[in-house]
């Protein structure tokens, strides 16, 4: 990979927006040591560092993809701020409150973004729980159709349904169940 290509933040953002995995990989590798250091020096482990950092990168990635990115700071600062918030939240969940955070970087509170981020996280968690509950083959069926965007004929063949109508009917039933589970736990913001 040519490093010089993605040295500027704008280049990285453009790369991610156009779906270039090299930009993502470059970004990931560039800032991981910073977050790793932050989490390790604030009573975290290597695995937790990886987890938190990936969540942070995902937040950034989704922000770039949704095109509503108005970056007023460096990517580095943004990532650090997001990961910092996520880590403090994780610590609070573990029942451990960081009395003094050892900050290595300047960070932003990102107040106007936090509700949106938390909303996304909650929705993600609820969806994951719901998908885990509906069981197989419903889960694979829905994932294949709605996430992997496969056509009905392929799904019918693979799952061994007699025809596409049966498959469609099955999919409908699965979706109804998922809907029930999902909305039982999730209230869309008004």
């Amino acid at each position, binding site marked *: 990979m040519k490093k010089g290509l993605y040295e500027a933040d704008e280049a990285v953002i453009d790369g991610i927006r156009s779906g270039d995995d090299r930009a993502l990989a470059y970004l*990931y590798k560039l800032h991981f040591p910073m977050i790793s250091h932050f989490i390790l*020096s604030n009573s975290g482990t290597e695995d937790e560092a*990886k987890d938190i950092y990936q969540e942070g990168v*995902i937040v950034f990635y989704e922000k770039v993809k949704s095109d509503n990115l108005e970056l007023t700071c460096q990517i580095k600062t943004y990532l650090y701020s997001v990961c910092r918030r996520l880590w403090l939240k994780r610590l609070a969940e573990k029942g451990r409150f960081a009395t003094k955070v050892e900050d290595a970087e300047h960070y932003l509170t990102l107040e106007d973004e936090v509700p949106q981020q938390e909303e996304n996280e909650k929705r*993600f968690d*609820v969806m994951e729980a719901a998908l885990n509950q509906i069981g197989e083959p419903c889960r694979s069926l829905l994932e294949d159709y*709605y996430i992997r965007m496969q056509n009905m004929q392929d799904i019918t063949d693979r799952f061994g349904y007699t025809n596409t109508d049966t498959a469609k009917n099955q999919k*409908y039933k699965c979706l109804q169940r*998922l809907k029930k589970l999902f909305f039982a736990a999730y209230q*869309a913001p008004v």
Partner: protein
Amino acid sequence: MLPTRHPFSPESEKIRLQQAKYIAEMEYLMYEQMERYLAGKMVAEEKAAFEALLQTDPRLAEQLKEHRTLLHSMQQYGQRQQLRTKLNAIHTSMEQEAAPKVIPMWQVFWKRHAQTMAVAASVSLLSVFGTLWSVQQMKKPVQQQTAHYVELRREVDKLKKAQTAIIKDINNTAKPAPRPARFSGTGFALSANGYLVTSSHVVEGADSIMIENTSGAKYKAHEVYRDQAHDLSILKIEDPAFTGFSKLPYTFKTTESDLGEKVYTLGYPREDVVFGEGSLSSTSGFQGDTTAYQISIPLNPGNSGGPLLDDKGNLIGVISGKQEGQDGAAFAIKSAYLLQIIGELPLATTLSPLLLPKTNTLAGSSRPQQLKKLKDFVFVVKVYN
């Protein structure tokens, strides 16, 4: 609408089932429509009709909203999962790149505690050196009092070597040059029949001893008695050429001399005889040693074993050493102890008693006159081994 009188009659049951089936079908139909609408598969006319229906039917609108949220969430979930997989792959490749330089535990530990350790190390260094320094400061005056006794025997090796080299060059004869002496000191005559005294440390470990005075007399001698405690050795000349000294000009003082008395010595700190004068500065010697005097005569290696005389020409002591780093603090064994070992001599050995001189011919003459008479009885003691 429904017959309620017989709720469990087969008839009403059938109707109920039909109704449920109808509702289910309606719902399925609605779901189909929503799916197609959201997927953008409706043709323009159908879409317009559906949108019009949405305007009038709030329940349908609500359903649509829910459906949209659900699908959106699911897609987002999928995207996140996919991204996770991608990031995990990146992480793995990153770890493989970094694998050769695995950070060992001690390095992590070091990084975490480097600052603390640096502070601790500097504090300990500071305290160690501070303590050393202050202890040294406290010790300094003590050190000045720590005295070192130096025996004044001269090492003459180098000097002699140079000399013999020259002799060899000039003569180039078959006769081997005399071996140079290793050490030298001073000694003086005790009796006319060839007894001398010198310091024990001068003749320590000697193979053979030669004595020589300024008038050129040169005799072979050997040690006949030694008193290690008082650092005194009695030598006897055993040379066929020796016929005896003339009458000794000095006598030995049996009593202790007084503080402040003028004293002098003759010795061989170099090749020629050297005179040194001073006064008796203490009636005790090195570290309170009562067997010796302290005298203020500048002495050098080679002076050991020399006679110490007072103004009247009485022999009052034998030069033995000086204090290192201290000017004018030299020491001489008191003559009383010399007389003591002379007395011991016939008891310890088979030798006949020494005939000590009884008359003093030095008293009353001037210092140069005294020295003229004296110098023939003071010898350089050369030690070979």
